[in-house]
């Protein structure tokens, strides 16, 4: 806003009073903006804080009728309970394993395909692009029934391999769509220079394109981690059969506690498990903190 006044002042000389009034209007608007965002921040954080608080409370405290009161003591006993007794530890590690391999696979295959679709002119390019991206218009739940039978025939029902492959398949369309647009926007000069200097395809891809596309790759990696961590319907459909409950992912474990909570009344365990699901996001945020902040504040610098 200050720049507005600086650049505007010499061009359009205006009475001081009017400028002042405008400034005050901006001030009021900014005040409103802060107020509205404060409201949204409370709406965003409220339920999260309530869940975290409840995870430290005993059953009686949860039902005492003071939802935002601090728990009488902060003990991690409920977390230990959830981790071992409700098997959440096992499910948590299963989820981490599946999502780690699923995201890695998605990024590897997706970036390879997106790169050639964006940077190479070849017969069938458009065909492949539309084929890949049309997967986007395809709601997840639609093919659950036939997907189940196909995996069953392949012997992949109730295996991590099957689940990981399905995760990759469902993540690829958006990854290719996003990365193809991103690779296209990168400058061609450096790429050309490398070609002239005789760099191989592999070298160009790993040493030139990947570093240039870093911000896009990180964004879509986070998007995929979140998306795959989120899945509930796919694992429910795929991880069934004998001994399936040792291979469940976290969301299935939570659904299970939630069903049991109705009978055994172990609500704090449920809330501890709910809190645990957010943990990986904190880890991801800690790892990519610099890039995320750079990406998020990019607009402010401009």
């Amino acid at each position, binding site marked *: 806003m200050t*720049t507005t006044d600086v650049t505007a002042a010499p061009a359009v000389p205006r009475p001081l009073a009017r400028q002042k009034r405008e400034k005050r209007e901006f001030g009021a608007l*900014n005040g409103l*903006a*802060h107020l*509205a*965002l404060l409201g*949204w*921040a409370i709406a*965003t954080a409220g*339920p*999260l804080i*309530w869940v975290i608080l409840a995870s430290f409370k005993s059953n009686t405290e*949860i*039902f005492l009728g003071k*939802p935002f009161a601090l728990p009488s003591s902060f003990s991690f006993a409920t977390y230990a309970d959830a981790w071992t007794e409700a098997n959440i530890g096992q499910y948590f590690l299963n989820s981490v394993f599946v999502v780690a391999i699923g995201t890695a696979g998605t990024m590897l*295959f997706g970036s*390879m*395909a997106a*790169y050639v679709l*964006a*940077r*190479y*002119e*070849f017969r069938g390019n458009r065909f492949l692009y539309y*084929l890949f991206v049309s*997967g*986007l*218009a*395809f*709601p997840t*739940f*639609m*093919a*659950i*029934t*036939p997907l189940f039978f*196909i995996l069953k025939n392949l012997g992949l029902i109730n295996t991590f391999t099957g689940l990981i*492959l399905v995760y990759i398949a*469902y993540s*690829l369309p958006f990854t290719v*769509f996003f990365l193809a*647009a991103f690779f*296209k926007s990168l400058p*061609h000069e450096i790429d050309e220079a490398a070609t002239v200097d005789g760099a191989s*395809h592999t070298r160009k891809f790993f040493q030139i394109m990947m570093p240039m596309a870093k911000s896009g790759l990180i964004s879509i990696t986070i998007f995929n981690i979140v998306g795959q*961590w*989120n899945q*509930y*319907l796919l694992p429910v*459909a795929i991880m069934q059969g004998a001994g399936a409950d040792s291979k469940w992912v*976290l*969301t299935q474990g939570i*659904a299970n506690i*939630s069903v049991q909570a109705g009978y055994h009344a172990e*609500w704090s365990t*449920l809330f501890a498990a709910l809190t645990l*699901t957010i943990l990986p996001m904190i880890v991801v*945020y800690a790892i990519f903190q610099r890039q995320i902040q750079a990406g*998020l504040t990019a*607009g402010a610098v401009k």
Partner: protein
Amino acid sequence: MYAVDTPPQKTAEPARPEPRRVNRVRRRSQRDARTAWLLSLPTLLILAALLAYPLYRMIVLSFQNMRLRELITGLTPPWVGLDQYTKALTDGVFWGVVARTAAFTVVSVTISVLLGLGIALLMRRVHSKVRLFMMIAMMFVWALPALVAAQAFRWLTDSDFGVLNYLIDKIPGVDFANHSWFVNPWEGWAVITTLVVWAGIPFLAISLSAGLTQVPKELLEAATVDGASAWQSLRNITLPILKPLLTIVTTLSVIWNFGLFTQNWALRDGHPEPVYQTLATFSYTQAFGQSRYSYGSAISVITVLLMLGVMAFYIRQMFKIGEVD
């Protein structure tokens, strides 16, 4: 891309013998094509096996009548032609589900996109520290699995112990103790819509506020100097620049919300009553709950067709935008 197929020698070295160059270029582009197909192959195989083939099987299945017996014995289910489709299309319950899903999609997407855009615009006005804080807070909500968010909302709105009843009950003269939110479908759907909007806004607000950085500041400043109101600047400068991104995120929101499953499923404890059924839960219940696998598939096919019919234009737009360089 242009660099690869139009060799730089063309203008730089016109003296080079013509046939040899053509030959070399052709050989290189052939090699490029092979590399390109090779690198696309894993994606092609995975998508063909796990998205395209199931889709094909789903269509085949919808013309058969597969029940539990065929599932267990592995016999080819009898062909029934269009029976499953006529059954669905003449069923009032099915059309009720279609109408409910469509209404929910329209309402939830409209609210989410408007609020998401509003928040993105507001965030341009505040200090960058506040903006960063908001972004991080929203990232956590975005990262929260839908099932977890649904569980949290389920207990927030619980009739006996829920915070919502507790807070509303505090208002003098209002008795909301033990109020059940899912007896009246309007209230129940309000809770579901709030949950979906609450969880959906972060993605929209973060993407749109990234898009807003593409709007040149100089343009907005020039408009302000020329006396344009904030509304005029928004309508005539910001929105046109944001339009491609808005099309993408709106289309994605429609696809996601149309497939609503987890939220109403979890809020109703895995047994949604008829008034809380959406196409996704309806198809799933028919297929897996009632072992009417073919009927469930027919419903899925109809759903895809309905959505593609309504969204064809926008999906086309979205694909085109992705192509723009």
